[in-house]
């Protein structure tokens, strides 16, 4: 870089020696200068001093609050200092990486399109490469239709087996059904380290049925996801609830949750499911929703 500078009042003149890289150099210098101007690094020292002044005034809290606010302040301070260097690199990375990602996505979509339309004219090498691409992409955390199809990679299938072994006794004790959130929590708590991600759990759970492990995932219309023992029978549960409703006059989410020792979210789903099957009728009031045994069938006999 061959450069000479001349300063006039209010102006700085940069002269680049006329050689092969002059134009590129000029652009680079412009970029770097602009960045420095944006960051105003010459001000950072004074800004730091200002902040310290402010902190001295505000430091009145005691106990846990003091530690919390000190931590928060420290984080903020450090963030401001490292921000500059980090942001610069982040910008560059973002720019370059976006281009690459665009290319990857394009190839992934053509591949997926080909997979859909081709029959058996793909050679072994191609499918091996496709699988490799799939693996590399999901390794980095990129999801596309390509990676989503591979819901049962080896890792996830193994996880499914571990999960089912772990859950079997607990599921039984809980009455045969557990919400996915509960499963996530107790499994990770038991695991201690090398925890699994929620996405891992979802992928593993989706292959439970295929692997015939005695339990499978079920999604209720409300969006609630549970793991249910294969032995669990919706019909049976509905009949049980209907009997309870007849015996006690009416039942609610709260008292079912208490009597059957299941979380209220599940109790609600079971009651709604029984209602859908026609065993129960609901009566919604301001206080709560009560479920009564469905006696409309009896009434129709009297017509």
């Amino acid at each position, binding site marked *: 870089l061959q450069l000479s500078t001349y300063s006039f009042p209010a102006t700085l003149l940069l002269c680049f020696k006329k050689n092969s890289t002059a134009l590129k150099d000029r652009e680079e210098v412009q970029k770097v200068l602009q960045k420095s101007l944006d960051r105003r690094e010459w001000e950072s020292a004074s800004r730091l001093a200002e902040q310290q002044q402010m902190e001295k005034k*505000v430091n*009145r*809290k005691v106990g*846990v*609050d003091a530690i919390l606010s000190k*931590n*928060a302040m420290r*984080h903020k301070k*450090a*963030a401001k200092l*490292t*921000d500059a260097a*980090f942001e610069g*690199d982040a910008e560059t*990375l*973002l720019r370059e*990486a976006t281009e*690459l*990602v665009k290319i*990857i996505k394009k*190839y*992934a979509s*053509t*591949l997926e*399109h080909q997979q859909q*339309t081709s029959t058996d*004219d793909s*050679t072994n090498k*191609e499918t091996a*490469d496709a699988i490799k*691409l799939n693996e*590399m992409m*999901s*390794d*980095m*955390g*990129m999801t596309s239709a390509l990676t989503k199809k591979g819901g049962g990679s080896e*890792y996830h299938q193994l996880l499914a087996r571990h999960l089912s072994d772990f859950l079997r006794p607990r599921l039984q004790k809980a009455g045969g059904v557990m*919400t*996915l*959130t509960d499963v*996530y*929590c107790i499994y*990770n*708590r038991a695991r201690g*380290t*090398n*925890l*699994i*991600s*929620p*996405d*891992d*759990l979802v992928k593993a759970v989706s292959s439970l049925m295929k692997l015939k492990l005695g339990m499978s995932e079920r999604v209720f219309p409300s969006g*609630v*996801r549970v793991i249910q023992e294969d032995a669990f029978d919706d019909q049976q549960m509905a009949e049980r609830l209907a009997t309870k409703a007849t015996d006690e006059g009416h039942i609610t989410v709260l008292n079912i949750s208490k009597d059957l020792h299941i979380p*209220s979210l599940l109790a609600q789903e079971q009651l709604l499911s029984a209602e859908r099957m026609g065993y129960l009728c609901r009566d*919604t009031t*301001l206080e*709560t929703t009560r479920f009564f045994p469905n006696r409309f069938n009896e009434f129709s006999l009297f017509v």
Partner: protein
Amino acid sequence: QEMAHRRRGVGIGRGGPKFQKKAEELKAVSLQSALETVEKLELKLTEFARQHKAEIQQDPAVRSRFLQMCAPLGVDPLLSSKQQGFWANLFGGTGITDYYYELAVKVAEVCLAARSRNGGIMSLPEVQSILHQRPTKFQPKLLSDTSNSSSSSIKNSNKAKNKNNKNNKNRGEKKNGVYYSQEDIKTAISKLSGLGGGFRTVRVGESIMIVSVPTELDNDHMEIMALAQPKGGSISLPQVQEETQWDADRCQRALDLLLSQGMAWIDHNHQSRTKASSSSSVEEEEEGSLYWFPSIWKEQLEKDKGEEQEQG
């Protein structure tokens, strides 16, 4: 004739045998370049992460910026916990992923525990402060390897407050717990949403609420709760009508849903108390019962406490 073939698309391979072969060649080439491009991307990410590894591990603000940056690229470091995976190798083990997955577990537990009280909605600062007060049983190995020795000393010396200074090398750690930033909590929630429990964040007025039930809440509900914010967490039907200018039905419907979900509690006694104090009975009837929102009320309580401490 040739043009017609080309228009049908060489990639689909439906052309004649000549084009079939060409199609396969092209497929192979594009697959190859796709693999190469992915490797290039890996290299770039690796370089970046290596340079800023320490910052990312220790500073929640930098960490959240990093995750934010990965999002538009479609890259998610927290998607999977594979041990030999790309991200695990980069950050030297499962430190970062463990941190977020454990936080997710804790957030789920906190929300579940409070559900009977607030119906499944609570403010982000409230969740944060509950998390900070909980003792942790296991220390996440988020930070550099030196933390391994200090974390075991934390377990043994929970009573000795002085050991804090040794451990404060790792910025976030305190005696009984780890510091979680609001961005960290938000990231954890976004991961939990995939489990079907309805976990999400919503904006109510000037604050952020965490919802942990699958109930659908629309803007009407949010607005009513926002109106209760300056009033200390409670509001009456006439007040809602006055401030929103909606008809009575619409207000009542929204309030009823919040009530049925347990997100609002109704206070009938408010009416009878004012009856006793004033003589004119017409006024009290218009006043109506009061609807309390535990989540808003709690939040205002924390805020007031914080302000008190600053003044006093």
